[in-house]
């Protein structure tokens, strides 16, 4: 396993990583997400020790890599495999030679090298392309070879730096599936650096969001997704945009409980005696749990409290959300400045499709 603590990296007066704490167990995939410039690539370069951290420690199986000398470090690197963005295969070496490269660095005998390379190429489904050069392989195939190369020394940690960037959806899915299988088979701790939330939802066990060199939010993916409207939660499972014009009867619903009866939509309609229209929705299995967000229109005279309570009984969390466009013009000048910070739970601070400032006020005036 890998344990990173208080990892800090400065370039002169610029602090790129600021006290990162982070650990990944064997067989676990930990995703690190964040906008570009958040420090993701610096973190990656610190983990495989292409950059020396300014302070803090990186423990791999209990050994602090930051304390090692150059020659000790070279040997310790066997424990950390790297899968590079766009594979980073050497253009003048065949697939097999690329996979064999790390073995050459450690003077592994020819016979052993051939066996190991064959095994790994077989495992990633690239044995039939062993003698092809990278230019003759598709992006997905290149990344399979890259994965084999990252694992060839039998590392305990695999660093995957944007392994699916630039791949088509089909290749992305197959690479992620392979990654997921391999971490279980080889019991490797995977640090997955990515900016693609689909990748995190599909394959990661835990997620940490990096922003301005700090981890601002983290948790098990399944738990983060069902978390009260946090930025990371919304980014991981965004509510798809709903049809416009639903007016004040629009409600935002989020899966909260771990067991939600999939028949909740008709059940709630019955309980409230109202017509319930599904305007948009996204329901997925994330980390073995069902998670989802939906936008509904509920045509009822029932009070808000009653409606919320009905949802709560089904393990859902619901908030009334006025459709901003027509409502905003109808309530010009009405927003109460006090309302904005007070209404916390439901009102998204920066909903992807909402106007952040007006929204909380509208929720209130509509209520």
């Amino acid at each position: 396993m890998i344990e990173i603590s208080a990892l800090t990296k400065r370039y002169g007066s610029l602090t790129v990583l600021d006290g990162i704490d982070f650990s990944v167990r064997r067989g676990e995939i930990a995703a690190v997400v964040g906008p570009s410039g958040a420090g993701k690539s610096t973190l990656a370069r610190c983990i495989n020790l292409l950059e020396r951290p300014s302070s803090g420690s990186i423990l791999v199986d209990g050994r602090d890599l930051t304390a090692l000398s150059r020659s000790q470090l070279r040997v310790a690197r066997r424990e950390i495999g790297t899968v590079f963005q766009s594979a980073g295969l050497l253009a003048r070496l065949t697939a097999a030679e690329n996979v064999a490269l790390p073995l050459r660095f450690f003077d592994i005998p020819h016979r052993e090298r051939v066996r190991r390379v064959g095994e790994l190429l077989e495992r990633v489904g690239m044995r039939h392309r062993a003698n092809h050069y990278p230019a003759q392989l598709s992006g997905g195939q290149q990344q399979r070879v890259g994965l084999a190369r990252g694992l060839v020394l039998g590392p305990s940690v695999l660093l995957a730096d944007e392994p699916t960037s630039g791949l088509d959806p089909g290749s992305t899915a197959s690479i992620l599936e392979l990654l997921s299988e391999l971490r279980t088979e080889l019991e490797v701790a995977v640090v997955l650096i990515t900016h693609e939330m689909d990748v995190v939802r599909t394959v990661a066990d835990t997620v940490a969001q990096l922003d301005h060199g700090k981890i601002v939010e983290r948790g098990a993916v399944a738990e983060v997704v069902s978390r009260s409207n946090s930025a990371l939660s919304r980014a991981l499972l965004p509510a798809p945009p709903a049809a416009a014009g639903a007016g004040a009867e629009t409600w935002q619903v989020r899966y909260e409980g771990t067991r939600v009866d999939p028949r909740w939509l008709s059940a709630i309609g019955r309980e409230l005696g109202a017509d319930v229209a599904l305007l948009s929705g996204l329901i997925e299995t994330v980390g073995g749990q069902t998670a989802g967000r939906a936008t509904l229109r509920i045509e009822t005279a029932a009070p808000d409290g009653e409606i919320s309570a009905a949802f709560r009984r089904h393990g859902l969390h619901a908030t009334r959300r006025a459709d901003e466009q027509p409502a905003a013009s109808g309530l010009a000048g009405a927003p109460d400045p006090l309302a904005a910070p007070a209404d916390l739970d439901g009102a998204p601070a920066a909903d992807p499709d909402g106007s952040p400032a007006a929204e909380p006020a509208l929720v209130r005036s509509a209520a």
Partner: protein
Amino acid sequence: MSALATSTAWSQVPSLLLPALGQTAAMVGIVMSIVVALGLPLGVLIFNTSPRGLAPHQGLHAVVSWIANLGRSLPFLVLMATVIPLTQLVVGTTIGIKAAIIPMSLAGIPFFARLVENAIREIPPARLDVGIASGASRLQTIRRIQLTEALPGIVAGLALNIIAMIEYSAIAGAIGAGGLGYLAVNYGYEQFDSHIMISCIVLLVVIVQVVQFTGDRLVRSLIH
């Protein structure tokens, strides 16, 4: 002399041309071995002391970079005259093929070093990182990553360098270094021997074309 301003009979041309061709080949061959032997490590050193290299070192980089620029900043004729004392010291003479080798090498080494440095710099950064990240030593990284990936660029540079050295060997003809340049100047120019002149020109054009063509073919076969 002007009375002798008749050209060598065509049948006699080969007997003059072939030895000269041999001298040019010998000069360029010897010089190029020296150039590769010293220019390659110098190019690798320039790259690896740069901020992107394996052992960034501002001071050392500035020094080796300065040396490489110095060798390229003088016109060859001026360089040849400048280094006469050094030539005398090293080979014991200031005329002939042996004397030409010193200034030609001094011009060729920095030229080749820059070509090598450029070829390595063209490698995408991620590929350079692969070596270190998977536990290569510096020497292994240079050999198995930098030089392997840069090989097509280095070969292209080699062709360029050979052509430049053929040109310099002709200029070195002025200090009696022999070869095609010497022949062209002494017979063709001084004695108005148009047959020799034309033969030399044709031969030089053909040689340069062949070197470039071979270089290009080789580069293509190295790129996969």
